[in-house]
């Protein structure tokens, strides 16, 4: 019986502790708000200072449709020099070090796509790099 009574604590006794906890929580909240909000965001580095062909909100949402629409016109109709162009995306957005838009989670295309868990097929065929450092060709390879 004695032991139980001793365990009971009164509000004034825990008040300093509570206040400290509240302060800490507030501090953590404001710090996170200053960083990037509560949602984790992909960390991509955009080095190009030029303006894109459309505002970022539109590009984020509509770039797959824009590219898909233009690829049909380019491949089947032979339209060239369009404003929408995968090669132009790569030219502008490739990482300055690696020269590529894929290859790391900071790379322009892969950064967002791995964050959103959307597989990119483009670079199974298209060159993702602005500097294809290809070891070129064995000549005279005629069967």
């Amino acid at each position, binding site marked *: 019986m004695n032991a139980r009574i001793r365990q009971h604590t009164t509000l004034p006794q825990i008040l300093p502790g509570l206040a400290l906890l509240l302060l800490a929580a507030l501090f953590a909240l404001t710090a996170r708000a200053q960083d990037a909000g509560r949602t984790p965001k992909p960390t991509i580095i955009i080095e190009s200072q030029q303006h894109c062909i459309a505002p970022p909100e539109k590009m984020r949402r509509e770039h797959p449709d824009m590219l898909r629409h233009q*690829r*049909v*016109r380019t*491949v*089947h*109709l*032979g*339209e*060239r*020099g*369009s404003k929408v162009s995968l*090669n132009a995306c*790569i030219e502008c957005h490739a990482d300055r070090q690696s020269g590529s838009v894929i290859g790391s989670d900071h790379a322009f295309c892969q950064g967002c796509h791995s964050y959103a868990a959307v597989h990119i097929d483009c670079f*199974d*065929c*298209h*060159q993702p790099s602005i500097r*294809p450092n*290809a*070891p*070129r*060709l*064995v*000549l*005279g*390879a*005629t*069967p």
Partner: protein
Amino acid sequence: MSARPQKNPRRALLGVGVAAAAGLALAPGVRLIELARARAAGESASSQVRWGMLIDANRCAAGCSACVDACARENSLDSPIDLRQRPQWIRKVELKQIGTGRTAAAPVMCQHCAEPPCVDVCPTGASFKRADGIVLVDRHTCIGCRYCMMACPYKARSFVHETLTQQKPEVPRGKGCVEGCTLCVHRIDRGQGPACVQACAESENGAMVFGDLNDPASEIAQRLRAQASAALRADLGLEPAVRYQGV
């Protein structure tokens, strides 16, 4: 079996009509639009043009592989895998007439048929003919079934068996798709000719001529008008855009 008719008669009639209209509209030797130029941005390929090639086997040297090498360089076709599996857009073929023993050599690539069997058999519409007569594969729709490889009488198509990383930005290619000579479509759209033709001219054999078959003033049309030439497997009635002399 009876011989196939050479042409659909309605198409032939249509062709005559179009030719007549063009003849009326333009003075001889003067063209309203220069067709062998780089098109403006956003302009589609024109159906008034039909790109073609004339290959003179008499001038094609047996040991020369300038065209094949140029193709591999231009389209980044180099590969470490076995020769039998390696994509091959153009190859040198050596011919020997058994009776006389006469030999000739010539490059063979996609013949860019007017009636392409690869397009007929393609189940997805990936194999198609562009307005200017270039037969291409849309790799976005190709499922790699290889029906077109079976259908092509010229063995002009290849399948990509390996993962590729060294593609050129203007020549996207990848594993799991069928591909073939594009007539260097990316160069044509810039107003240049195919890389093989340029390499052949630089090798001083000058066995290949490229140009617009529909333009009566072009070198290729003039030579085809003046000299005898033949289509490979003309019996199939596919009307290839690539024609040969001396085979």
